[in-house]
């Protein structure tokens, strides 16, 4: 009897131990037992929504699953695609991409979609984070001046695209109706210092890239998947110049990157950085040490990297014509102390002669065989070739540059009264903050390997084109500037 008792007691102890062990595992956040569908929702709050490039603050890892009320308003309004070009955007919350939504798995979202009474079209929303018909689209079809409500439980953590799914779907998306919703895993994401929201989209306008005035949507170009604009955050230069993203040396940056499409797939790359970690397609898989990550239309990724040295990092779609000719270009400006071990900056610039022989410094590179301009007209003509071969890749064929990134050479007030400033930028390079036509540029142009004659030609070409005031520069003047100084550092 005593034996039996002790056996039963032991069994009880065992059972208790097992129960205790299991509950510890649960407290540890052991994923094995956790099912977000079963997590009880405690209380309710109005979800904080942010405009790009900002994201709401990370969720407290100890916060219980909550009912999150999301109020999102659809607005159709005219906005600027680039300087002098306007477009009628259709937006979730007033911006392209739409407001960023941040919740955690297990949360219950009560989604209020409000279609502004001034809007002309019906809209709905499909959130890829929703498990259910149409991702919510089936329950959120909303006429102008109306509001619809539906709710869903966040079952899968990850970074998801949302978009309008009203016919014609392509047109609604092409007009800017997309954004991101982040569903944090229970316990949160690893902590970082800076977080930003960037989303690529392609736009189809009646006029080609840069054509001034109001540009309506072009259905034919959209069907042919031939966009005029490929941009980050809805417009050319939306995250460049004084709107560039910022970070300090030593900080870890996480970018929530989405691609609204409607058509193109993005080869997302940050010039001068390597992604330490990428959550592939916004899901659980982590890839390390990535140069370029593919972001499908209607997809997203989280990229994380530590910035080690100061300077401007450029965000591009590495389908590179999109970056330099259609606007898919943004900047992350890193400030702080140099670390010359990690990156030295340019140490030398000299001619490399494959045949051997002495190294030459640049000015005499063309030697005595160089064809010299016989007249001002010829100088301009020869300068045009130099411009087309070398300069226009960045400063653009119309010399208007790219706002916030490449300063304009057209009607430029930077060198209007002092041609030597133009010469110096070419022969010595130019870096640091300058102001051109009222716009601040903080970037770097390398010294160009051109002869005195070629520099004189191209500067003379510039002075006599693109709305500049005219004039002529001689090779002798270039020679003097070249001899007189070193790389310019800003214009002040």
């Amino acid at each position: 009897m005593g034996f039996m008792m002790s056996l039963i007691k032991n069994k009880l102890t065992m059972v208790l131990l097992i129960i205790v062990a299991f509950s510890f595992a649960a407290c540890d956040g052991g994923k094995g037992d956790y099912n977000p569908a079963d997590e009880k929702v405690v209380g309710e709050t109005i979800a904080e929504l942010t405009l790009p490039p900002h994201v709401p603050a990370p969720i407290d890892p100890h916060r219980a699953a909550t009912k999150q009320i999301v109020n999102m308003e659809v607005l159709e309004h005219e906005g600027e695609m680039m300087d002098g070009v306007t477009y009628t955007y259709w937006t979730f919350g007033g911006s392209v991409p739409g407001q960023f939504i941040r919740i955690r798995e297990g949360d219950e979202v009560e989604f209020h979609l409000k279609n502004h009474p001034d809007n002309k079209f019906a809209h709905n929303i499909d959130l890829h984070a929703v498990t259910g018909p149409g991702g919510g689209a089936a329950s959120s079809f909303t006429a102008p001046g109306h509001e619809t409500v539906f709710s869903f439980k966040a079952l899968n953590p990850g970074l998801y695209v949302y978009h309008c799914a009203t016919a014609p779907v392509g047109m609604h998306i092409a007009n800017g109706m997309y954004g991101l919703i982040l569903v944090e895993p229970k316990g949160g994401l690893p902590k970082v210092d800076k977080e930003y929201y960037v989303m690529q989209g392609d736009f189809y306008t009646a006029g080609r890239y840069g054509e001034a005035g109001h540009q309506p949507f072009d259905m034919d170009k959209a069907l042919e998947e031939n966009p005029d604009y490929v941009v980050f955050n809805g417009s050319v230069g939306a995250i460049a110049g004084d709107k560039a993203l910022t970070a300090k040396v030593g900080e870890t940056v996480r970018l929530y990157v989405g691609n609204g499409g409607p058509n193109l797939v993005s080869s997302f790359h940050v010039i001068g950085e390597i992604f330490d970690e990428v959550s592939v397609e916004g899901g659980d898989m982590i890839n390390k040490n990535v140069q370029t990550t593919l972001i499908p239309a209607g997809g997203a990724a989280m990229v994380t990297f530590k910035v080690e040295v100061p300077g401007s990092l450029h965000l591009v779609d590495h389908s590179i014509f999109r970056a330099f000719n259609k606007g898919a270009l943004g900047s992350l400006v890193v400030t702080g102390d140099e670390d010359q071990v990690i990156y030295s900056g340019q140490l030398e610039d000299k001619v490399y002669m494959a045949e051997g022989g002495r190294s030459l410094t640049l000015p005499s590179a063309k030697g005595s065989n160089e064809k010299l301009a016989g007249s001002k007209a010829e100088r301009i003509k020869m300068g045009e070739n130099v411009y087309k071969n070398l300069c226009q890749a960045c400063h653009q064929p119309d010399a208007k540059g790219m706002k916030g990134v490449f300063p304009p050479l057209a009607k430029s007030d930077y060198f209007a009264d002092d041609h030597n400033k133009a010469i110096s930028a070419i022969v010595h390079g130019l870096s640091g903050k300058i102001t051109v036509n009222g716009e601040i540029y903080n970037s770097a142009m390398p010294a160009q390997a051109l002869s005195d004659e070629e520099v004189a030609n191209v500067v003379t070409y510039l002075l006599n084109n693109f709305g500049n005031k005219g004039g002529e520069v001689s090779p002798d003047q270039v020679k003097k500037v070249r001899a007189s100084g070193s790389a310019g550092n800003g214009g002040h």
Partner: protein
Amino acid sequence: MIKKAYILILIILLVGSSSLIAEPPSKIEWKSIPSGDFFPFFADTVKPIKIDGFFITETQITNAQFLEFVKANPKWRRSKIKSLFAESSYLKYWKSDTVLGKQAPPNAPVVMVSWFAASAYCNWLGGRLADMSEWEYVASASKTSKNAYNSDEFSSTLLKMYEKLPKIPLPNVGQRFKNAYGVYDMHGLVWEWTRDFNSVIVSTDSREKTNQDGKLFCAAGSIGNVDPSNYSAFVRYSMWSSLQAKYCIRNLGFRCVKDKL
């Protein structure tokens, strides 16, 4: 004699306030639309729908015209209408029950009217709202051609007009787009109610083809329609399918049709 005159006036007044006998406004112009074939945008087949000839109002019904209706039919006044028949925003741009005010110019199309109110008005005129296929039949006329339905250029022009729909206070009817039938503003002024606005495409998610009824077609992105590049038609059908009969919307008005006897 004086007494007789009083009685006469009294009779006129009584008759005038009765909705049964009150005369509809005289200035409504009807345009004759001939019979013909209409190829519906949403269909499994390319079989045409036979359209019998009808009359259609030359323009959308204006604020002034609708005002006569509510004066004659008090139950359709803003303060009287049953909430079942219209949202609380019914006729909200009017100054009061029977005064238009600045936001509602007399010759601008009446908006913020429910389907019920629009239907009642057309019935009062001795007509009805157009069926969607009748409406689209008239709307497929460009300025020069009675059937521009399959013209990409026309569709593209319409999309641009839709982007620029005017705001409150709306401009007058009959001044903008006149089509080959002589009918004004089928596009580019306000959207319009139709009798069967919610009957053809019922799916609220535009990308699926509903399997509830093989003969009904949703606003599918790629299936269930004859011409997926006809974006302007997608826009109209989307708008219609987002509506409910009591809705009152800033850029939604109506016009009427009458059958040919």
